């Protein structure tokens, strides 16, 4: 997909944007509002003010990271659909070790994020093992591990991790000194988004510009050839599993560190799944996937403003990504058939 010609990219983008526009206009008309007003409200709600933009970027952080994780895995041919569960594993690790970490805030943050990334990578290992040794499709095992993780969070916030100081199903809050401070006073956006975007750039460089990245891509594009040519296919696939799990775990850790400060239930509204959608929209290209993730986050924040101002349902925020991804996949499949 990184090799789509410019004309082809344009055709795909045009198809996707017209489909998304059609969905937006259709919903606005159904709600009896002017589509133009709806778009204006959506844009203003997403990026019309520093606060709105900050909210969008704060939301985008976890999405960008899971989108990179999905892109990396997909490019190596690993269908990790369990980013949601790995995100939760990372959040659990952050909530568990966070309150225990003493010392300088910087060291505590580093420890917390390392624990979160490690937990995400560990959470994907059963799927990696089952695939390598028993041929269990990772699509199934990772998605099932999502359910295990969700149930685990639900049990932990009512059990071992419950805040002893309250009755709510939530963990103890991180010390304020450890939590990431907002970049601007009063806003919610923190340096976390910068970490996420830097990782997107790093992942792109790794895949497209390094010898190691070429090996990874070859493994994803032609597993049988990769093995016969003499690439360490099993090791590269294991690495892709671990890296995508670690990125999702890191997303969960940053969510606790920068946004929520603690773990509660339910902790995610599908950030792992939306990350996969962003990866698909971005053609599993980490930078493009990161841009898609920011776009989806903007839709999320903008749509609540749009619902408030124009009455167009906020469900748009979930409909449009779905329509976009379907349109892109359909357009790519059609172009691929023509070109074959």
């Amino acid at each position, binding site marked *: 997909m990184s*090799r789509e010609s410019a004309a082809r990219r344009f055709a795909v983008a045009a198809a996707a944007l017209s489909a998304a526009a059609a969905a937006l206009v259709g919903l606005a008309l159904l709600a009896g509002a002017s589509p133009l007003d709806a778009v204006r409200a959506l844009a203003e709600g997403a990026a019309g003010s520093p606060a709105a933009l900050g909210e969008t970027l704060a939301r985008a952080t976890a999405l960008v990271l899971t989108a990179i994780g999905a892109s990396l895995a997909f490019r190596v041919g690993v269908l990790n659909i369990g980013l949601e569960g790995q995100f939760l594993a990372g959040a659990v690790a952050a909530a568990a070790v966070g309150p225990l970490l003493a010392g300088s805030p910087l060291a505590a943050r580093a420890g917390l994020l390392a624990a979160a990334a490690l937990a995400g990578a560990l959470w994907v290992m059963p799927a990696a093992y089952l695939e390598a040794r028993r041929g269990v499709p990772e699509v199934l095992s990772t998605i099932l591990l999502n359910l295990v993780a969700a149930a685990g969070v639900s049990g932990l916030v009512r059990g071992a991790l419950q805040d002893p100081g309250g009755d709510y199903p939530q963990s103890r809050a991180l010390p304020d000194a450890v939590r990431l401070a907002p970049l601007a006073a009063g806003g919610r956006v923190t340096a976390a988004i910068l970490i996420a975007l830097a990782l997107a750039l790093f992942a792109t*460089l790794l895949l497209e*510009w*390094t*010898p190691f*990245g*070429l*090996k990874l*891509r*070859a493994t994803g*594009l*032609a597993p*049988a*050839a*990769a*093995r*016969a*040519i*003499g*690439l*360490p296919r099993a090791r590269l696939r294991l690495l892709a599993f671990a890296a995508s799990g670690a990125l999702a775990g890191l997303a969960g850790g940053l969510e606790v560190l920068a946004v929520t400060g603690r773990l509660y239930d339910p902790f995610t509204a599908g950030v792992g799944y939306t990350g996969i959608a962003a990866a698909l929209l971005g053609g599993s290209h980490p930078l493009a996937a990161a841009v898609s993730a920011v776009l989806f986050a903007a839709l999320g924040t903008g749509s609540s403003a749009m619902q408030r101002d124009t009455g167009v349902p906020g469900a748009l925020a979930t409909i449009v990504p779905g329509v976009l991804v379907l349109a892109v996949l359909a357009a790519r499949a059609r172009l691929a058939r*023509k070109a*074959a």
Partner: protein
Amino acid sequence: MFPGEIHALLGENGAGKSTLVSIAAGRLVADSGEILRGGSQASYRNARDARHAGLVLVPQHDLLIGAASVADNLAFLDPAAPFFESAAARRARVGRLAQAFGLELGDADARADALPVGTRQRIEIAGALAGDPDVLILDEPTAVLSPDETAALFASLRKRADAGAAVVLITHRLAEVFAGADRLTLLARGRSVKTCRVSETTPQEIGGLLLTNTEGEKNFLEGVWGARALDSRADTPGGRSQTHSSEHAAQSAATQPLPSLVLTGFAPDEARAVRAERISLSLLPGEILVLLAIDGNGADTIARAIAGLERFSGRVEVGGVPLPLSGDPLAFRAAGGAFVPADRREEGLVAALSLSENLALPNPPGSVFLDRPAMRAHAEERLRAFGVRYASPAALAGSLSGGNQQKTVLARELAHRPGVLVAVHPTRGLDLASAAAVRSRILDACRSGTAALAVTADPDEAQLFGAPLRVVYRGRLSAALEPTTPPAALGRLMAGLEG
């Protein structure tokens, strides 16, 4: 094309034969022009439409459903199959079609993806013939057939033609064209060069036309007459005199170079194919051994197991290094092995990567970032040295024709002067010039010290290597045979009628 005729379509690799018939059968869309059938326009949107209209294509690479059994695949292919059909009836069809068309179709319950390429192709051919199509197009059907099966296939095709069908046959074998076809068309670079009745021309004329429409292959004649090329090798020290006593080579190691490849009590574990008998042999640097076998007799598996792609028992040493029994392509390559797989599209190249990227694998240059200029230069050098016709090193490997893909695989595999080259059907499906070029590259490598093990199903091909042959039948190796053994005798050994 007329009803009742067998029309042969000839041309070098990349001439556009497969593309043309794929368009006719609705698998690809034409950029321009139209196809007329019975005076009216006949462009099919997909293969199913074409099949319903009585036009069936047997593709060069079979399109069977891997997870389904032979019996089920044939039921899918047979338009006369009822919607509900008992498993027994489906199994019975396998035997019936095998009998009717003289093709060995294998075990009715075997999964298609567990079968060798040759058997899969035979299933596809049987399925096509089963429907009594009005227009039957076969894309290189005989590349994977034994001489007897080829004869049976031509008899079936003649029967279809006599019943009024038009048969199009793509092939590289001139002998078949002149023995079995009525008319022929010669394609070169997408254009029709000549169409005539077979009786109005000679193999010499067509062979000449094929060559003049091919880019000048420097080593063409040398490759065609590989035997002669190898004879000259016998004059050089360490040449031919050693080849025949390969089993004893290890014993006299003190006076001779160490063997490049040693098999001791070796047998692949492969359960789904024919179980090979234990094999012991050794190859010295520069030696060639050709394994000749009809697909399905275990020769491919032997080669794959040596290359680390299948588990085996016994002992394999490459350059003196024993390889792990579990099969490890990395260990094989680290010991100096190179491998040319039978399925170049699946295992030989990464179709969606560029030529320069393919040629840079498995160890792309660059310390931190890819050294793209070096990759490009390396690719241009290798592709030129192997006579690959390509647009640019940035072109996708999948965009090349079969022959050029095969040359690209060899260009990569022979880049680092391997100690041992294992090549499975290295020239299968290639036109004469490409096949000769591929053979001459392998012979070149052997002259500079590579030991080669080549697997082929074509007796003529086997002889052109000019090296000792061993016929593999049901996993058993024959004694070493002279390259001058008559093809008829080789054919009998391959069919298990002798030996």
